């Protein structure tokens, strides 16, 4: 069946090759496809270029585990939990190259990628030093109608996009519960050559038909859909569950030191064989129930 896109985490992660440019959904502590991120680390993927608008803990874990060597995007931070220090150290040591973009430039580059346009323009960035740092992808161009110049942002087509959502059917039609229309879901899966979606729940298509206005991604763009309950943990998946503060704080503490960083990666990423083992390692049902009780969850 063409429209059966169900896959295991391992199968889905195998769509990502060493060296790929990978667009990763995430807004600081929000809704990152963490189960796939952990699987990529477990599988020892190398030299990934990560595209993110506002990336948090998944990028820090990937930096710590050495699976990435570029970041293309807006910012990397865990908001209230502070800077991503393993990412930061990687950049400062020259192990990770940054191609920094403003938010409209990320959107323009991915938007052009999705629409098969060579570029989209923005009026952002003008006056900043970012344009000059990235002449291959950002170019000040004249307005053909005689107005002020704009910045042409070259199309970016990631090899893979990875997103997490509330539910999907087996054909890969994806629904979000109303809380927000996440920017990454709005564009990453449309720009990328391959698309991996993890969801809290795979449901019958009939369930989606009850609320077609909540479907945000048609199945025909999706290559693999994986059911992973709490698949965004320790980031949030409101209104189902909140971000895990304790886990973020534990990571911040561990990341201060190379040894504790490795211990953390072993304990929470490399050793758990699957999502169930991971959830037990991070506190099991007690923790998950508490996260479900977070305001709005």
């Amino acid at each position, binding site marked *: 069946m063409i429209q059966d896109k169900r896959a295991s985490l391992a199968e889905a992660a195998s769509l990502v090759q060493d060296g790929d440019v990978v667009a990763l959904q995430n807004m*600081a502590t929000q809704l990152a496809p963490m189960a796939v991120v952990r699987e990529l680390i477990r599988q020892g993927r190398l030299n990934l270029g990560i595209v993110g608008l506002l990336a948090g803990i998944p990028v820090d874990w990937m930096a710590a585990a050495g699976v990435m060597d570029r970041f293309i995007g807006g910012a990397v931070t865990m908001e209230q939990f502070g800077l991503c220090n393993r990412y*930061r150290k990687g950049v400062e040591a020259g192990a990770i190259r940054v191609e920094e973009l403003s938010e409209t430039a990320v959107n323009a580059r991915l938007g052009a990628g999705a629409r098969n346009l060579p570029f989209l323009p923005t009026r952002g960035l003008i*006056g900043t030093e970012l344009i000059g740092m990235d002449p291959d992808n950002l170019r000040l161009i004249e307005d053909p109608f005689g107005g002020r110049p704009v910045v042409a942002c070259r199309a970016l087509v990631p090899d893979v996009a990875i997103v997490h959502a509330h539910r999907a059917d087996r054909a890969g039609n994806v629904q979000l519960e109303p809380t927000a229309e996440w920017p990454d879901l709005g564009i990453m899966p449309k720009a990328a050559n391959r698309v991996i979606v993890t969801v809290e729940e795979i449901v019958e298509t009939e369930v989606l038909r009850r609320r077609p206005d909540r479907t945000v991604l048609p199945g025909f763009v999706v290559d693999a859909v994986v059911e992973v309950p709490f698949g965004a943990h320790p980031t949030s998946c409101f209104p189902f569950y909140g971000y895990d503060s304790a886990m973020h704080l534990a990571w911040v503490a561990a990341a201060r030191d190379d040894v504790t960083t490795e211990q953390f990666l072993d304990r929470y990423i490399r050793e758990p064989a699957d999502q169930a083992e991971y959830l037990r390692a991070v506190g099991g049902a007690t923790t998950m129930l508490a996260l479900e009780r977070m305001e709005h969850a």
Partner: protein
Amino acid sequence: MTTQTAAAALADGPVAEDWAVDEIMITSLAAHFVDGDQACNGMASFIPVSAFMLARMTHAPELVWLASAVGLDPRPDRVPASTLEAPLWRDSVMYMEQFGDFWNYALNGRWLQKFCVGAAQLDRYGNANNSFIGTDYHAPKVRLPGTVGMGDMGSIGKLLYYWNPNHNPRSLVEKVDFVSCAGYLGGGSEREDLGLTGGPQLVVTNLCVMDFEPVSKHLRLQSVHPGVTVEQVQAATGFPLLLPDGDVPVTAAPTVEQVRLIRDVIDPDGMRKREMGKH
């Protein structure tokens, strides 16, 4: 209602005796957000979020607030632990689509005109840096988070309101290591010559309020917070201060009612304190 009259109205009530520095930052910022404005906050923005909530409860009930650029006119029960998560946009009138739709409003010249910016470095001409400390983009001394929206907001005609809870010579510098948010660039007409409208308006720190001298576009002391001296501000600033004509005014202190709202209603968990004294 203009910013001036809003500020005057705020000063009407009895002044609190035990206000804290985070509270005077909040009231100073709040005075600049008035009915008819549309405000939008980014992440880790406890001071601006508290200011928007205070303005809406006092002088600017019709300040439109797009929480985290997502939730329109929300009713959070208090400032939550994140200013970029769903508890902040509780009970919204609208969830704005983020990739495409938000930028229709943000890039248009008529809406969301005022924008609060926090940055690691700010220089004498209001340029900001959140990219890196050092001299080499590809081998920085310190990698900062990155610009995201700042890299746009400085260029698209917004009025920028900087807040800096840690006024010191490392955060207020002669020249930023990297311009990741366009202020007045080299000062004077340089910004205007590039076709950029808007620009930095105000800097609210833990010590003072600063604006920009209209011709040179150089940062200028507007008022010192009660108990702070001009010398203390100068010592904490990485370049020579420009002073206003005449005596340096003292920042209007928070009123009893403002302090009550901030402490008891808006931010009973003290999230705003997290931003203070980090560096």
